[in-house]
């Protein structure tokens, strides 16, 4: 099958398309050519089937558009729309092949009253943020475990700030809270919040930021659904926790922030560690530190003891060897001692001055001398023999 309807093929019997080929082709062209669109119109011929699917027609003064809203999409809506009601729908144009009917598959349906208009603005802003990748979960940064400097963008006299100061002060007084004041409701709120958020990038050593306010009506919280404010949140260079006091509605700020907290107190809790827990952790480390050193000391003592033993043993062996050598040396010395010579029967003759007399001529007749024998000395005199 060609890309365009071939007129010449179609004109001949063999080249003819089947009906379903045409309607399938038409559907593909419509779905590829037109993305989802928001449409405003009046509901007519509304019918809810047993299956849960809704069928209706949207019309204005000049045209009508068949719509279907599947059960899985309309289940979220509290009440079905009524004929004659003005609505906004978000739908994808398509062609129902069996009837070649052009129609809208509706994903979202809002009244045009204040509530519906609000939703519409929200959905539009959300889609714009999504297009720019600002809702990508991969953008979310982890919160720092031990923040030193925490910025709080909120009203300086609101309950939100009091709650944050109380919780942060109880859990982590080591932190410094820097309040960047901004009105959080009223005509000036959007501009003030954007300006305050813009200041955060200029605060040195900032670790994390909280932006939020206490609970309020949907109108009160509207500023936090401003696309401008959401973009300012996304541009903050440190992780941001969004804390807009509400229970059910998610704001645009919540969607772009790195973390969302249901209340300002919960936000303060999310950005601070618990000091009791950290104190226990330090106690554990202190014990391990002491034990580590003690064990190290014990090991050291053992080593010293072992070393001392080895030294003593070495000295012992050395001493034994020394004693043996000494004994041997003593023996040799002893053999050389003149006393040993005397013991063998020799004697030494010396004159009165103690000089040793060695020769015959030193013994003239009558010469008195002293004779040293092994056990003492005797006086003697040389005489004629």
């Amino acid at each position: 099958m060609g890309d365009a309807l071939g007129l010449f093929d179609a004109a001949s019997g063999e080249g003819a398309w089947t009906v379903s080929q045409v309607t399938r082709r038409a559907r593909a062209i419509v779905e590829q050519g037109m993305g989802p669109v928001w449409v405003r119109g009046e509901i007519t011929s509304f019918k809810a089937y047993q299956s849960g699917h809704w069928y209706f027609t949207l019309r204005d003064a000049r045209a009508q558009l068949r719509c279907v809203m599947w059960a899985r999409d309309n289940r979220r809506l509290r009440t079905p729309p009524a004929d004659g009601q003005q609505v906004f729908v978000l739908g994808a144009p398509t062609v129902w092949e069996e009837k070649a009917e052009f129609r809208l598959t509706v994903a979202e349906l809002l009244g045009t009253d204040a509530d519906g208009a609000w939703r519409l603005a929200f959905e539009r802003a959300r889609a714009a943020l999504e297009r720019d990748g600002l809702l990508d979960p991969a953008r979310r940064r982890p919160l720092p475990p031990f923040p030193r400097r925490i910025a709080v963008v909120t009203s300086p006299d609101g309950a939100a700030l009091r709650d944050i100061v109380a919780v942060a002060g109880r859990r982590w007084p080591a932190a410094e809270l820097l309040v960047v004041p901004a009105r959080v409701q009223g005509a000036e709120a959007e501009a003030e919040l954007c300006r305050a958020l813009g200041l955060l990038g200029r605060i040195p050593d900032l670790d994390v930021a909280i932006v939020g306010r206490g609970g309020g009506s949907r109108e009160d919280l509207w500023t936090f659904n401003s696309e401008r404010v959401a973009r300012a949140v996304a541009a903050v260079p440190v992780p941001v926790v969004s804390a807009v006091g509400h229970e059910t509605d998610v704001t645009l700020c919540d969607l772009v922030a790195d973390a969302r907290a249901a209340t300002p107190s919960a936000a303060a809790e999310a950005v601070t560690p618990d000091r009791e827990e950290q104190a226990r952790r330090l106690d554990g480390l202190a014990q391990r530190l002491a034990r580590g050193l003690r064990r190290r000391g014990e090991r050291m003592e053992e080593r010293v003891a072992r070393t001392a033993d080895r030294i003593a043993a070495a000295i012992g062996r050395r001493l034994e060897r020394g004693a043996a050598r000494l004994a041997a040396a003593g023996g040799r010395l002893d053999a050389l001692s003149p006393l040993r010579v005397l013991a063998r029967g020799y004697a030494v003759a010396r004159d009165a001055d103690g000089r040793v007399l060695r020769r015959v001529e030193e013994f003239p007749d009558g010469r008195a001398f002293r004779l040293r024998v092994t056990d003492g000395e005797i006086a003697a005199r040389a005489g004629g023999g």
Partner: protein
Amino acid sequence: MTKHERVDFGAELAQLEDIVRRLEGEELDLDEALRLFEDGVQRLRRAREQLALAEVRVRQVLAERGGALRVEPLDG
């Protein structure tokens, strides 16, 4: 606007854990072990001081006409 002067608890904690691991694991001579221990005790003290702080410090940041940031006590 000034840098903050407060101790980085997370950094102290990380150092402390490293010291304890080394003291428990590595073969160290006594001098080195003692040095590590003393370092660890110092860090432990600094970290505990952070936990003992009585009150969180709250100030507000205002932008002056010229664009400079001014920090002042938050009244009320």
